[in-house]
């Protein structure tokens, strides 16, 4: 399970640049992404979703919160490492305090005392670190099992999984580590049930809906530094589209003359 994303990632990197007319310029790998998406979707409907729903049914909310807090605490430790790698001392201090508080008072992370104390959850990933050092725009990439990502974030995830210090330090035996990975996946899937149900209902093409929403979300997350590049790249024509040109505001222009932009009348 650990090797698979890495193999797929290599395939993805090799395939970059030989794609034909994608529907989103940020998704040149669409054919491959779609097939991984379909594979994930089948697996999800057959296994992950039923398991996650059963998990939700069987366990009480406090137990689920405890489980998800435990893994969040691990992510905070990773976040701390990435805050340091991306030279963000304030966030690093914050995440250090989070891990310290939650590991001790929170009994190995089962209870999250840090958030009510005002220590924000950053969850800086290796992908964020790479983005911070300039890799802002990255092609969309669907990872097997793990789902939506980008080439940049996928590389980060693969590296993190590969290094995976918690496997040796915390879980020791590989079997324990695999169980932990499984539990983490189920816990994550359970938290995403409402979102995936909403997408199922809303989307005509769930693949592109998920992709476009994910890319926008990611751009907003990393976009703090580069406001210029993020929104322009999220959707085709997002930048040169003036909504007031498509529909006259309100059909009552007399009330809102300021909406009419005389300089934006050039056809494109």
């Amino acid at each position, binding site marked *: 399970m650990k090797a698979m994303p890495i193999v797929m990632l290599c395939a993805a990197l090799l395939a970059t640049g030989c794609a034909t007319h994608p529907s989103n310029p940020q998704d040149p790998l669409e054919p491959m992404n779609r097939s991984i998406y379909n594979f994930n979707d089948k697996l999800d409907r057959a296994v992950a979703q039923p398991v996650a729903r059963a998990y939700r049914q069987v366990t009480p909310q406090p137990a689920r919160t405890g489980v998800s807090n435990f893994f969040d605490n691990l992510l905070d430790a990773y976040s701390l490492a990435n805050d340091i790698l991306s030279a963000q001392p304030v966030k690093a201090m914050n995440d250090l305090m989070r891990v310290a508080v939650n590991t001790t008072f929170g009994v190995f992370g089962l209870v999250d005392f840090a958030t009510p104390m005002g220590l924000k959850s950053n969850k800086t990933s290796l992908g964020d670190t790479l983005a911070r050092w300039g890799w802002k725009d990255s092609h969309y990439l669907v990872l097997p099992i793990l789902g939506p990502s980008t080439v940049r974030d996928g590389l980060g995830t693969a590296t993190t999984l590969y290094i995976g210090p918690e496997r040796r330090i915390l879980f020791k035996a590989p079997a324990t580590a695999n169980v932990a990975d499984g539990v983490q996946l189920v816990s994550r899937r359970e938290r995403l049930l409402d979102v995936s149900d909403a997408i199922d209902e809303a989307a005509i093409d769930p693949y592109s809906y998920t992709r476009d929403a994910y890319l926008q979300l990611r751009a907003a997350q990393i976009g703090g530094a580069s406001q210029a590049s993020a929104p322009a790249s999220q959707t085709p024509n997002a930048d040169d589209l003036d909504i007031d040109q498509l529909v006259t505001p*309100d059909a009552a222009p007399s009330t*809102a003359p300021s909406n009419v932009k005389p300089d934006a009348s050039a056809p494109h």
Partner: protein
Amino acid sequence: MKKLLFTLLSLLILATPVLARADASPVDFVRENSKQVLDVLKTENGRNTRKIRDQIETMVIPKFDFKRMTAFAVGKNWRVATPGQQDELTNQFQTLLIRVYASTMTRYRNAQIDVKPNAVLNNNGAEATVRTEVTLPNSGNSQKPISVDYTLYKTSQGWRVYNVSVEGASLVTAYRSQFDTEVRTNGVDGLIKSLKDKNAKLASQGSGA
């Protein structure tokens, strides 16, 4: 003199809310509507889903500008569509969005909505983005509140919403490339048909929230 000043001051303070109501701020608009919708949704008990949905529909329709939303989602192909097609697209998209809105809100009906007091004004005050934070109940403390932003614009009848973003991702423009692909392969009528099919499929799934 002091008394006069005091009287003037208190008059001013008393008058402020009145002035505010005459030209309701986008923040108040969003706050009031979120509250109303949640109040209705809290009366849902599993058997009255249909009724609740109708109620939400009548509440929500006048607050959103669905034509503008549809144009925003369709993008440049909007110009290609005839006025008749535009109306049909708007109708179908409106049905879909309301359905999605109602069931999403039902799922999150116990959420806390915190409407941020300062809206971001654009386009000389004709447009406003109102930020809200939604905190889910029972989600544990570690869950960050979800940011939901509403983009509104001023019409002669007051503010209207035409875009909703969750965590920076627009629920409207996320449709754009699906719509674009559909129009490129099957034309505007193809897009209308696929929206119709989607709505029919959702309707046949019954009242499932």
